């Protein structure tokens, strides 16, 4: 038996956000995520732990990136907001069941 070993690197991009992820910020976030996905990084962890507020427009930016990355064989996974109010929009739209959500970015990176 002949055995050859090689190692391949894959990137996980971690994007940490603070403040409000709302209609005003949504376009910027969408552009940033699109840039990563188009550059071939389709494994993305979005750390929302320090985010104060998320509305449906903010959610939409995450959903769009998640759909694109999944169709490239990757995923967008989320770190849950520490503030329960900022998590509410995920619950009300049931996206808490669509996203893979973890407690820390380290967990999501090491468990990818």
């Amino acid at each position, binding site marked *: 038996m002949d055995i050859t070993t090689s190692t391949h690197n894959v990137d996980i991009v971690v994007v940490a956000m603070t403040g*409000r992820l*709302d*209609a*005003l910020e*949504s376009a910027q976030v969408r552009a940033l995520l699109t840039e990563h996905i188009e550059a071939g990084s389709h494994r993305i962890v979005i750390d929302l732990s320090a985010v104060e*507020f998320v*509305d*449906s*427009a903010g*959610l*939409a930016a995450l*959903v*769009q990136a998640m*759909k694109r990355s999944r169709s490239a064989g990757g995923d967008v996974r989320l770190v849950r907001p520490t503030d329960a*109010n900022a998590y*509410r*929009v995920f619950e*009300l*739209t*049931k*996206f808490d069941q*669509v996203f893979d959500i973890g407690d820390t970015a380290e967990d999501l990176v090491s468990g990818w």
Partner: protein
Amino acid sequence: MSELTVTSTYEGLRAIGPWLREIVEPLDDDVAAPLLARMELALQELGTNTVDHADSPDGSFVLRSTIGDDSVRIELRDRGRSTVDVSTIPTPDADEPQVRGYGMMIIEQLVSRLEYAHDGEHNVWTATFEIDHPASGPENSEH
């Protein structure tokens, strides 16, 4: 009663949260905090819909609040000429995650009651939020 004129842009919507915070100020903290969170998300979604969909010639809309013992009522009045047929707003399909179209679904789960009227010049949305007073026996009720 309190009134706020909001510039009809996403940036303008940022004024809504601080204004709501003042409205709930008189209430006990444990009542005010969850109420504020519900109102802030609901009004953000109603405001976004006005920015996105209402044809508002003067580029602003007006919020008015009335606070009672058991509820807070917020009225959103724009100058949009287009009337809205609330019954035709589609509900997103639970099995097929979509990118937009969740605004009304979110609002309906946060308000106790939502009314829509068109009074000739304005679209008028009235959202009522019941106040969840902590359960208290008749003895120590101080209202």
